[in-house]
């Protein structure tokens, strides 16, 4: 029903800069605006966290063990007297890196595989389809566990495992997005312009699949952190004493019943906030890049 209003206006709106667009969307959607602010905060903490914290996050006996939050220790202290606030803040960088790298890896390899399958079809499609089916049919969390257990308990392996189990989602998505465009008019036109298949795929089709992929990426970032946290919970996470939200929540959870709530609540809140930010960011990004939302 908007067609009547939108078609002539689109030419007039041509000059609308990205900023104006963003500003409008953020004003229209306060939740997304919040997500962008939170993301900036997380980024800031990841970059400068180690210089901002009051205590060495690794130092035991920064205060008495298991003290409730106080002016000296905003988030209290853990069972070895380490400052929970410092640990939560410093952990931001590691968690963000895990999420970023894991998602970047699965995005790059997944979408490359999916794009090829979607464009060429045929045996490439069938082969990659079988491969993805195999990965998908694995219970994903157990697959991640198995990979980390087999390859060794390091941050790199956690990242690889997370990347592998996320791969099929990107590949499927890329395949679908490329597939619907492989015979689009602009692709035909590109062929007439003498573009090779590779060029068409890389320069013409692939950039168009990015908007839906962006959403998937931001959603997966949160998921990657949760995955690392889950691995930590069963003892396969980052090795101590490195602060990491997942481990802190996993270990802190054991203190809920005994009443030392701050050990789980603060890192838990950080984790939730981060995941939350990424998820909301996903929605916000989709709004930003979706041409249908532009008037």
């Amino acid at each position: 029903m908007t067609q009547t209003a939108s078609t002539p206006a689109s030419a007039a709106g041509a000059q609308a800069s990205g900023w104006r667009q963003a500003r409008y969307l953020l004003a229209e959607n306060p939740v997304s605006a919040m997500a962008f602010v939170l993301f900036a905060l997380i980024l800031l903490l990841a970059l400068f966290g180690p210089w901002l914290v009051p205590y060495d996050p690794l130092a035991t006996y920064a205060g008495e063990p298991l003290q409730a939050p106080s002016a000296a220790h905003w988030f209290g202290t853990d069972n070895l007297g380490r400052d929970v606030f410092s640990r939560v803040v410093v952990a931001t960088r590691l968690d963000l890196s895990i999420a970023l790298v894991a998602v970047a890896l699965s995005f790059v390899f997944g979408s490359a595989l999916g794009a090829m399958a979607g464009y060429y079809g045929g045996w490439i499609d069938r082969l990659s389809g079988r491969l993805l089916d195999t990965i998908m049919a694995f219970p994903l969390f157990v697959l991640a566990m198995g990979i980390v257990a087999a390859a060794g308990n390091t941050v790199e392996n956690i990242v690889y495992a997370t990347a592998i189990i996320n791969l099929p989602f990107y590949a499927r998505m890329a395949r679908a997005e490329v597939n619907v465009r492989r015979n689009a008019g602009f692709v035909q036109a590109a062929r007439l312009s003498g573009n090779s298949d590779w060029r068409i795929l890389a320069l013409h089709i692939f950039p168009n699949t990015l908007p839906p992929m962006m959403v998937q990426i931001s959603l997966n970032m949160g998921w990657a952190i949760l995955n690392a946290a889950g691995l930590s919970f069963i003892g396969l996470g980052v090795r101590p004493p490195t602060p990491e939200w997942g481990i802190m929540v996993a270990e802190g959870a054991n203190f809920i019943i005994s009443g030392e709530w701050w050990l789980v609540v603060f890192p838990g809140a950080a984790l939730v906030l981060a995941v939350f930010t990424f998820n909301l960011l996903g929605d916000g990004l989709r709004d930003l890049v979706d041409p249908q939302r532009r008037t």
Partner: protein
Amino acid sequence: MQPALLDIDDLTIEFATRRGTVTAVEQVRLRLNKGETLGIVGESGSGKSVTSYAIMRILDRAGSIHRGSIRFSGIDLVGANERAMRDLRGREISMIFQNPRAALNPIRTVGKQIEDVLREHAMATRANAREKAIAMLRAVRIANPEGRYHAYPFELSGGMCQRVVIAIALACRPQMLIADEPTTGLDVTTQKAVLDLIKDLTREQRMATLLITHDLGLAAQYCDRIVVMQKGRIVEAADTATLFSSPQHDYTRRLLKATPGPESKVADLLPEGDARRALASPPNPEAPVLLSVEGLSKTFGAPGSPTSHRAVDNLSFKLHQGESLGLVGESGCGKSTTSAMLMRLLDQSAGALWFDGQDIGAIPSKQFARHPLRAQLQMVFQDPTDSLNPRWKVRDAIADPIRRLGGTGDKAQLRRRVEELAENVGLPVELLDRYPHQLSGGQKARVGIARAIALNPKMLILDEPTAALDVSVQAVVLNLLVDLKERLGMSYLFISHDLNVVRLMCDRVMIMQAGRLVEEGSTERLLNAPEHEYTRTLLAAIPNPPVPASA
């Protein structure tokens, strides 16, 4: 004078957009009497559809009736609550839309969908709903209505779907029918059948009809009165005969002129004195053959299997240098498959293709991309939006073939060439740095043409190049195409379903049906004295506006 069935006064509709309020419809007044058919004609953005949605009160969330009144049988529709409106919709006022297949619930049988309306308005009980639905299907002249009752929309043709939509609309015998572009996207023969059906049914039931269309010819043929809308306002309202014989408003006149008729020439579509008017030179029968097609066939699916389908069957023709050849047929006749094969985007199943003396049919489509002849064979696509990469700037879209095949490495030179091309197709140079979604439909069409002629091809396939454009834009583009052909000496294969456009553009015409060529001949001969039955049917189905008396 009896009170009008529908009385719209001072209707103003606004849309809230991110750049503030946009007025889509302004101070519209119109009246529709019982049993009367009123046409609302206008190009896209004229506000004709919005007006109809306002009557039904199904404007989307952003739109609202800012001012004015709509009265139906004395009831105030603007002030009516949703419940009251729901009672009116479908029972007193019904509406049918363009794109009939999308207008039906894809996962519900058509019979059930008719029943839904009947039951909603208590026109049927559980016991007799089915029987009434079947009766309705029969009424819209669907063969085997008992069987079709169980059909899903995807199992029916577009024309059939529109009949079902009409059945839904008329099931409760409303007093008024709004038909919003009911035949856009349908083949001409289907279009005629559907409109005739509407006409018959409304006449039988003494229904008032509001026909919304962009096609003046259509309105002329089916409406008692016509209002012309432009940019949200009514610029002229008159009974059909008056409107065509003595159009008052400038815009109406321009519109009338731009609509191709059986007698018009390309240049006539544009106002006199318009610099863009172009003159086609007469065909030269002595010109050498550029493209020769022999026994071209394409079969999809494994041969012999039940799913195998012969899309193009033994097609042979020749295209001379500088000639413009029309290829006409209804959807599914194999036009697009043919053009894909000619363009070497698709390998043929059988047949030979000779272009400029070379056997291009022997070159697999996969290898043709880097072949020197690639530059000589170019194409303008049907949908200007779909054929432009939404993430590429216009400049890059036009430059792409030059970069790939033109061998121009020099940036400045490339820049100049792109700007020259833009000038050639009448595209303002400042638009080159925009993205496709920031352009209008006509501008996008020009970009597509500029890209196609960037390499100075010898032959251009034009695949319904103006089907998605408004008539006034079409007029400009058609003139541009003629002009370019004259200047650059290209040959055209002009694919279209619109015989009036083909008449303007082509020296010779081929008629295609179900993959085969049924008739071929000079435009003059073929359109005036068709030999094949199918050609005659096609011609008869074209709605033609009365020739303006003033022209």
